[in-house]
Structure formats: structure tokens, C-alpha cells
């Protein structure tokens, strides 16, 4: 058999790279698609969670007897229903987690550590009864002093969240516990020596607020537990295999007996990579012997899931007169929430990744405080540190009177650059994105008073990881494609296109679905911009098996030697003299004779995807500041990002546009607002103000394609990088519009107005 070369349709055309209609689309525009809260089972109960009213308190006692006695209540669970877990770190997305903390976050044990921390849960025959039952649970608290701010939490006299938390990564090992869980650092060269060679050094401190992923679909889970220990769970998640692992661990179940179906998912952005309701629903079902459905309210989503860290970041960057960056330092203090595990590690690694700098030193601190435990949020940790760095880069450009794109170009990482966090970059597209932005009409368009233009670049690693897909050729020649990573933004369309081209079958004859945990081998979650990258790689592997099998079958049918057949453009083709005797056979032709030629036709791609390619982007924004109100309006926005290869250009653009707008929200409006009482004051969409359609302009998206040589189609992950540059780009545009360097996010109207007044720029 000749090496297969089937990346196209029979007519030589490609589906990959075209804007197909997504296979799951019709169900999503008709209301038929079933999301987390859309599943129901006969006899199901409704589960609800009792949450802490205090930001920090010791739980003295929990009395559930009155709730249990209420007619219609079928189960009540507390910390007593979960065995404690030993301290053990495991990877969760791009972050780490510890089951000792997970079991405590799912249901509080010794203490409640934030307002909204789950304390107990009930299952009842109706929502109304479940609500009444929650009121009957008597919890005795001994309230404790709390700490919300990250810098305050680091003080030696701060209220202590965990008396067994000793800072890791410092020598000598601390004698006393603190709220500083970890110190991390990356180092390259000698920064002190580097700064001595600088003609200009800019040093500034920045502060960012915690922001929520803001998915429109609240967390939801439906569980049914059978007497023999087998469990079924429907949940809205970015990784149902991960949910299975966590639930099995927390509840002492065999993984093989837990079957998890990922429902359609209404947005995740990293926030649906952890468990909240799922173990509670299973535990309630186990106790009640009936299915249990649980759905969070929006208030619960804000108070008890996500968000990402707020942080304090100090940046010091030195450059020569000609603009060469010579030394870079940063110190990052990231909020982890109530349990350790902020994305400070990736924050340190990303801070200076876009630039080729000889001397780099970045220190990071992971700090706990009385807030909900942070979860991953799109390029976790990177937007924060890169915002601070991009702001300082802009300031250096101004001070040296160098064009900000020229300055970035002069220092840009490129193929062969050794990143401060370790590896040497292969082919990357940062310079190409800078050039693409410079070539836009936008870059030179005129601006008026109170308007400003800003530019910033951004980086994210992207990951691969364990992935399993299957391709089955059905009796009629149609193809069933099964993947195990939930599809959030067009994955099925991208994978179906790859399968169609690999096998040379029409796109609409490939039907992709997301299989449950019982249908495919292990899949790591949808996160790290990995699902299209890894999934398409696994499809190529599965298709390879099918093509090899079909060639072997043709060899038998045609009594040919392996070198007399090859697979190309959707057909097994006879070569040489054989071509005169027999006709090529398509995949559909083999489907008809599958039974006579060896049985069912299919392939399974089981891979641990390697070679993820980093994606760089550069964003350009125009905005206008209203000096009377301090309100900022985004006027124009352009994104250029390296996709490697866009499998489905429209959905890649969608990632760029959506990430940019999330970044606009982060930069201008979104924040968790706490009162002195340690309670969240804006736990709803009215007061936690995410961008709406009238807040933003069209987002121009430029697809730069510098192929990733380690992927069969050249694909890089694209989903996360788009949220990295907006914060810096907008801060830089604000400086251009007002002359004020804002060092605190969000740059919300009250803050902007105050700054304008302080400078005598606003007459209001």
C-alpha cells in the first residue's frame, strides 16, 4: 500500500478551510439542543444547596433533623457524607488542584471560607419544599475575621484561612503558616546586570479585579445512582471524563461504573473544568434512591463558581535608547480564592513570552483569601501579567518616541528565540500579526480629541493531551464521528471537515457527536485551546487505520500486492497494470461489501497529542472617553492572531471576536465588588456588567496562518490568546486619549472620571 494521501474530496477540493454550516447547528437555532438544565428523568427530585452567609466562620454544628422531617424531603447531605481526602495535587486544565481542597469546596468541613460556600444540600419532591428545607437546617457558626484583598492577605497579621498552609518555594521553610500558598519564579540571565546596561527603566505597579467567566448557562447536573453502585450523570461541563474522575474519587465509586454524558454546554471559558454540583447530585441520589436534578441560580454562579484571580503586579522593564529590551523583572501576587491554586504559574511564564529578552526574572505568589476558589478563565493568568507588561512597553515606546509596533517588532520573539520560561520557539507568528495590524487601514485612520488608539500583543502556550475519537463507516457509506471533548464553539464542524477530507466523503455525510464516558477511551477536557488541535490529530490517526484497512481489503478483492493499491481522494485506487483491470472503490463502495470483506469498518484514534503550537496575537483598538461621565466607548477594534491553520475560519474568527469582547469587559467594567462585611455586592448580571451588543463595535478579525509543523494540518490552538491583548491595548488607548496611565482595572466610569478631575481634565 502506498502512503495514504487522502486530504481531499474526490474532486480535489477541500472542506477544511471552508465556512460550512455546523452539523449541530439546526438544533441550536430551533431550541431543540439539550443543555444542562434541559434534562429530566422520571421520578426526579430537585436538589438545592445551603450556602454560607459568612465570609469566614468555623462550623460548630449542623443540625439537619428538622429538614429531614419535612414531608417531601428525601435526602439531606453535609460534610459527614463525604470522606476526607489526603493532600494530593493533580493537573486540572492548565492549573493544579488538590482533592483535600476539592472535597472542602464541594461541601465545607471545618470552616466556611467565603460567602456562598456550600454547607449542606437537600433533595426534595419540589423546588418549593427544597427551599423550605434549607431554612430548617440549623448551622451554628463561630464567625472569624476575614480578608478579601490579596495584599492584605499576605500581611503577617492577616486572618489565617488554613492553619496548615506553609508557603512552598521559599528557603528556609517558614515556621508559621500564612495565606501565601506558594512562591514561584522563572529566571533567565542576570537581571541586575541587565538593568545596568539600560538607558531607560520603567517600573510600575498594576492592580486587576477578579472577573467571572460569565457563561450564560448556569451549572446544572442530573444524577441517578443505582443500588448496584452504577451511576449516570448528565452535566454541563468542559470535560466529562474529568467530572467522572472527580466524582468517583470523592464518592468512592469505581470509575467504570460512572457514566457521564456531557450535555450541550452553554459556555465555559475554563469555568466548567471543575466540579460543584455533580458530586452533590450523586450523593443525594445515592441517599434518596431517586434521580436528583440540580441547577445553580445566577447568584450562586457568581458567589460560588469561578472567577479568575484579581492581582497586584509590579513590572520593571529596561531598554536601550534604540529600544532594545535588555532586562525585565516582574512580581505577581494572584488571588487564589479560598483554596490555593491561582494561575500565577502561567502568569509568570507568559509575562514576557512575546519578547526576546536576555535577562528576565519573574516572581509569583499564590495567595488565599475569603473569596470563591478561582477557576480557569481563558488563558488563565496570562491577561493579568501581560496587561501590566504591555502597558509598560507602551510607556517605553512613548518615552523613546518609537512607534509601538516598531518597538514590539524590534523585540518580538521569533523562531529560535529562547523563551524565559524554558523552551526555544519553533515557527511562530508574532511578527506576522504585528505586520498584519500595521497594514490595516485602521492603523492610520484619523482620530479626534478624547479619542485614543492602543496596541498590544499577547501569547498563550496551548496544550495537546490525551484524546480519543472514533470514526465508523456505516452500511450506507455515511460516517459516524465520535469525539470525547465537549463542543463549545464549533468543534464538531471542524472535526467533521477533517474527517470528510481524510476519507474523501462529503461533509454532510459525516455526522459528529460527543460521546459519553462509556463510549470512548479517556479524553482530557476541552481547555487549553486543545480540542480542535488534538481532536483533528486523532481523526487523522483513525482515518489512517480505515484507509489501511480498505487498501488491505482491496488487495484481497483484487488479488493485488500492497504496492499495487493506494488511497487518494476518497478512493482506493489500483496502480499500474492493475488499473486496467479494476475500478477504484470509494469508501461507500466498501461500506456495501463490508460484511464480505472483513466486517465493520472503522478506526479509533487514541493519542496523547504532542506538539501544541503557541499562538500569538496583536490587537488594535480605538476608543473615546467622555470627560463628563468618565465612560469609555470602544469605537473600532481589530484582532490579528496566528491560527496556524484555520480548520473553520468563521469559528476561528468567532474565537478572536469573543475573546476580544470578554477582554473589553475585563478592562472597562467587570469586577467583583465586596463590602467591608466580606460579602459580594454585585452577584447578578445587572450589577456585574458584561458587554452587551450596544457596548461594542464590529470586531475585525485577521487570520494569520503560520503553520504549526507538528500538526498534520498546521493547526494551533486559537481559543485563549484572544483574551490576552485587550487589557493592555485598551489601557494604552486610554493613555493616548487622556494622557493618563491607568494602572488599575477595570477602568470603569467612576475611576476614569476621578482621574480626569484630578488632572483638571473634567469640568464636571
Amino acid at each position, binding site marked *: 500500500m502506498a502512503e495514504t494521501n487522502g486530504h481531499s474530496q474526490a474532486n480535489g477540493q477541500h472542506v477544511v478551510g471552508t465556512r460550512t*454550516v455546523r452539523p449541530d447547528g439546526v438544533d441550536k437555532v430551533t431550541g431543540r439542543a439539550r*443543555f444542562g438544565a434541559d434534562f429530566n428523568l422520571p421520578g426526579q427530585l430537585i436538589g438545592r444547596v445551603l450556602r454560607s452567609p459568612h465570609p469566614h466562620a468555623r462550623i460548630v454544628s449542623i443540625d439537619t433533623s428538622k429538614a429531614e422531617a419535612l414531608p417531601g424531603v428525601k435526602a439531606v447531605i453535609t460534610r459527614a457524607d463525604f470522606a476526607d481526602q489526603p493532600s494530593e495535587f493533580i493537573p486540572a486544565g492548565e492549573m493544579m488542584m488538590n482533592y483535600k481542597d476539592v472535597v472542602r469546596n464541594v461541601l465545607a468541613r471545618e470552616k466556611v471560607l467565603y460567602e456562598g460556600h456550600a454547607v449542606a444540600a437537600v433533595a426534595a419532591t419540589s423546588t418549593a419544599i427544597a427551599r423550605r428545607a434549607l431554612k430548617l437546617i440549623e448551622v451554628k457558626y463561630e464567625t472569624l475575621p476575614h480578608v478579601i484583598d490579596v495584599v492584605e492577605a499576605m500581611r503577617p497579621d492577616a486572618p489565617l484561612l488554613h492553619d496548615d498552609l506553609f508557603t512552598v518555594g521559599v528557603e528556609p521553610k517558614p515556621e508559621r503558616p500564612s495565606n501565601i500558598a506558594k512562591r514561584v519564579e522563572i529566571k533567565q540571565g542576570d537581571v541586575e546586570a541587565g538593568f545596568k546596561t539600560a538607558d531607560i527603566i520603567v517600573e510600575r505597579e498594576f492592580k486587576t479585579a477578579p472577573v467571572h467567566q460569565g457563561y450564560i448557562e448556569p451549572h446544572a447536573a442530573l444524577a441517578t445512582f443505582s443500588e448496584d453502585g452504577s451511576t449516570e450523570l448528565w452535566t454541563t461541563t468542559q470535560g466529562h471524563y474529568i467530572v467522572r474522575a472527580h466524582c468517583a474519587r470523592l464518592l468512592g465509586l469505581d470509575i467504570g461504573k460512572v457514566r457521564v454524558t456531557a450535555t450541550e454546554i452553554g459556555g465555559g471559558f475554563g469555568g466548567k473544568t471543575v466540579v460543584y454540583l455533580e458530586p452533590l447530585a450523586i450523593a443525594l441520589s445515592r441517599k434518596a434512591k431517586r434521580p436528583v436534578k440540580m441547577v445553580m441560580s445566577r447568584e450562586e454562579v457568581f458567589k460560588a463558581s469561578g472567577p479568575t484571580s484579581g492581582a497586584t503586579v509590579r513590572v520593571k522593564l529596561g531598554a536601550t535608547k534604540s529600544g532594545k529590551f535588555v532586562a525585565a523583572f516582574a512580581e505577581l501576587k494572584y488571588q487564589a480564592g479560598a483554596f490555593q491554586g491561582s494561575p500565577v504559574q502561567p502568569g509568570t511564564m507568559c509575562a514576557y513570552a512575546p519578547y526576546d529578552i536576555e535577562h528576565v526574572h519573574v516572581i509569583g505568589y499564590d495567595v488565599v483569601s475569603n473569596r470563591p476558589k478561582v477557576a480557569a478563565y481563558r488563558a488563565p493568568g496570562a491577561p493579568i501579567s501581560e496587561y501590566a507588561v504591555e502597558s509598560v512597553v507602551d510607556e517605553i515606546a512613548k518615552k523613546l518616541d518609537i512607534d509601538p509596533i516598531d518597538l514590539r517588532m524590534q523585540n518580538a520573539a521569533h523562531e529560535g528565540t529562547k523563551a524565559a520560561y524554558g523552551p526555544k520557539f519553533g515557527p511562530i507568528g508574532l511578527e506576522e500579526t504585528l505586520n498584519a495590524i500595521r497594514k490595516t487601514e485602521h492603523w492610520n485612520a484619523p482620530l479626534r480629541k478624547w479619542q485614543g488608539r492602543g496596541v498590544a500583543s499577547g501569547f498563550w502556550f496551548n496544550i495537546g493531551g490525551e484524546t480519543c475519537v472514533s470514526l465508523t463507516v456505516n452500511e450506507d457509506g455515511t460516517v459516524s464521528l465520535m469525539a470525547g471533548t465537549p463542543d463549545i464553539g464549533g468543534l464538531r464542524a471542524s472535526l467533521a471537515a477533517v474527517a470528510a477530507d481524510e476519507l474523501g466523503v462529503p461533509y454532510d455525510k459525516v455526522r459528529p457527536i460527543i460521546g459519553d464516558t462509556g463510549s470512548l477511551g479517556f479524553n482530557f477536557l476541552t481547555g487549553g485551546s486543545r480540542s480542535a488541535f488534538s481532536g483533528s490529530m486523532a481523526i487523522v490517526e483513525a482515518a489512517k487505520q480505515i484507509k489501511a484497512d480498505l487498501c488491505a481489503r482491496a488487495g484481497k478483492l483484487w488479488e493485488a500486492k500492497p504496492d499495487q493499491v493506494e488511497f487518494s481522494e476518497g478512493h482506493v485506487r489500483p496502480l499500474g497494470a492493475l488499473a486496467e483491470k479494476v475500478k477504484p472503490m470509494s469508501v461507500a463502495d466498501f461500506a456495501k461489501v463490508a460484511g464480505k470483506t472483513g466486517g465493520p469498518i472503522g478506526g479509533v484514534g487514541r493519542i496523547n497529542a504532542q506538539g501544541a503550537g503557541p499562538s500569538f496575537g496583536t490587537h488594535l483598538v480605538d476608543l473615546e472617553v467622555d470627560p463628563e461621565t468618565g465612560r469609555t466607548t470602544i469605537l473600532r477594534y481589530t484582532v490579528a492572531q496566528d491560527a496556524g491553520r484555520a480548520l473553520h475560519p468563521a469559528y476561528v474568527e468567532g474565537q478572536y471576536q469573543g475573546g476580544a469582547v470578554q477582554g473589553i469587559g475585563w478592562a472597562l467594567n467587570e469586577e467583583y465588588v465586596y463590602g467591608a462585611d466580606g460579602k459580594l455586592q454585585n452577584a447578578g*448580571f445587572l450589577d456585574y456588567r458584561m458587554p452587551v451588543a450596544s457596548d461594542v463595535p464590529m470586531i475585525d478579525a485577521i487570520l494569520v496562518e503560520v503553520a504549526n509543523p507538528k500538526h498534520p494540518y498546521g493547526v494551533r490552538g486559537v481559543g485563549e490568546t484572544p483574551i490576552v491583548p485587550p487589557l493592555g491595548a485598551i489601557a494604552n488607548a486610554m493613555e493616548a486619549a487622556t494622557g493618563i496611565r491607568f494602572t488599575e482595572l477595570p477602568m470603569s466610569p467612576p475611576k476614569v472620571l476621578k482621574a480626569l478631575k484630578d488632572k483638571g481634565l473634567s469640568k464636571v
Partner: protein
Amino acid sequence: MSKHHIEAKVNGDPVEFLCETEDTLLDVLRDTLSLTGSKEGCSSGDCGACSVILDGRLVCSCLVLGCEVGGRSVETIEGMAKGETLHPLQKRFLEAAALQCGICTPGFLVASRALLEKTTNPTEHEVRYWLAGNLCRCTGYDKIVTAVMDTAAAMRKG
């Protein structure tokens, strides 16, 4: 207290149901009538995922009580396609990739349809302000607004 007995029209069909006083129209649609196309994102009227048309007027069904709709007509996402024919907005949303996760899509479609029934010549500004009551966290709104504008243009041409 006993439940209310309500008779109404949903997507042109007569329906009757029992509901508690505190049940919202969204609760009734989703839990009683099994019309789960309308989504609950906030239950406070801020996200628009539960948008329906009540007697010709665009409303958040989470802000309407079930017992308020007696004798009235409700149109939901489930009634938007006619048989196998998708509404032009549904078709255009698909072609233009105007959805990613799709949870907000029913609300956007219902709201956009209400707009295009008022005017087939909206400016981008009007589309953006009309849809300001619908939250989307995935798309950045670009392709949604474009799809609505394109549909309007196609409808003008007939």
C-alpha cells in the same frame, strides 16, 4: 393554596396548565409544557435567554408569571421554523456562524425576529440597541449583528 388553571395559546396551539402563583412563564414553558428551548440564564430579566413574544410584544418570560398569560398568545423559539423551513433568521445565523455555544441563540432569534417584524431596515445602531437586552458571552456580537442585518437586507429584497 390551590393551583391556578390557565388556558392560553403557545405557538398557535391551545394549551392548558396548572401553575403556582409564583411560577414564572419560563417555569411553565420549561417544566410544565416541556418547551425547553427558552433558557434560564439569570431569572432577573438581564440576559434575555428566555425571550418570548407575548401578544406581539417581546418579553423576558422569567419576568412574566404563568398565571398572567391566561387567554393570551405566546410565541417561543419552538414556533419559529415552519415545518421543515427555517425562519430566514435561523438560516442566516447558521450560515454566518452567529452562534458558538448556542445557549443565548433562542433568545437572540426571538428578539431579532421581533425587531424585523417592526422594521426590515434597521441600522447597525438600532440592531445593537434592540439586542442590548440579550447577553452573549461567546461571539462578541459581531456575527450576530451581521446576521440580523443581512437577514433584513434579504427580506427587503423579498
